[in-house]
């Protein structure tokens, strides 16, 4: 397993989502992303556990674009990944953002 941590922001304050949001499932070529409010000094933090090694730069680019788009402060996203392609990652994050009210 490869464990990666990325932080983006800080972003200006905005109303926090009350409940945690989970999208996707851990299955071949898929992932689950759990989004929770956390005191992160306005930052958006993503923790990735992936069964596929060596794609740190790809994760950084995909997640960076996502963070820039939604600009959600104090959000912790934890990802269990079973080889999702960037297309699937992007789709799951878009679904999460919609549920968090940031689409």
């Amino acid at each position, binding site marked *: *397993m490869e464990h990666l941590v990325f932080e983006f922001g800080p972003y200006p304050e905005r109303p926090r989502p009350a409940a*945690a949001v*989970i999208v996707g499932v*851990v*299955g071949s070529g898929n992932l*689950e992303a*759990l989004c929770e409010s956390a005191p992160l000094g306005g930052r958006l933090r993503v923790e990735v556990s992936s*069964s596929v090694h060596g794609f740190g730069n790809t994760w950084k680019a995909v997640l960076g674009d996502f963070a820039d788009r939604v600009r959600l402060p104090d959000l912790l996203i*934890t990802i*269990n990944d079973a080889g999702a392609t960037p297309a699937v990652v992007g789709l799951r994050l878009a679904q999460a953002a919609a549920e968090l009210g940031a689409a």
Partner: protein
Amino acid sequence: MSAGYLEATARQRVARFFDAGSVHEWLGPSARVTSPHLAALGMPAAFDDGVATGRATLAGRPVYFAAQEPEFMGGAVGEVHGAKLTGVLLRAARDRPDGVVLLLDTGGVRLHEANAGLVAIAEIQRAVFEARLAGVPVVAVCAGSNGCYGGIGIVARGCDRIVMTEEGRLSVSGPEVIEAHRGVEEFDARDRALVWRTMGGKHRYLLGEADALVEDRFEALREAVVPYLGHARPLDLDSVRAEHEALGRRLARFGEAPDSLDIWSALGVADPARVPMLEPGPFVEMAAPLRERADA
């Protein structure tokens, strides 16, 4: 055309099966109670270890539920996954809701944590009986893409009721296992028509093992489960003996049949070859008067 139960994830199934807004999960994803074994094997964990558990209402009646996630390791039972299933059932035995609904979708025990998984199966089996003895009906829904195999196949048959779709499968050994042990002549696992007529919902309904066979739609599955709530079947020596005798009769009647088609024919099905193509409605209409009944 909205996707049915078969394609939905465990959490989507729970949300659409039970009353809207009634679902409360126990040990949900945020609890992060994950498998202690998978990380050591370099495999990704799931926040809920592949099973969503909790309470909800169904047609307004309080129920406890467990839903296995089909995509996570084929719904297979590991240590945490099994303990969550056991916990739901034991809590039901204590609290006595109107029923426990198990949305099963599994290949059986998770090979990566086999010993813990096997112990878990025994615990789940016992917990089913604890709940039933407490008068709580336990209803198994076997309508998922992995089927309902291995130890959980046995557990399902220990429940009060089984509800299936024609896409659902219920058995102990899976097709590949049978082929690996007994040869392709005995069972060709790639012949999926054979797999379904041997293990699929329609066969289980005709044999009297499934109590209801419905379309792959949430409303249809809900409507099939609701009447069973609050009505536990007896679980005593007499009922076990009656079940045993029924199985004996079945063996005497069909033990020599080489194929399900022969069994269906013996049951009086007019055109057995046409059965797989029948839609659930017309199928049940045809099959209901003919099928085996353990309680007959």
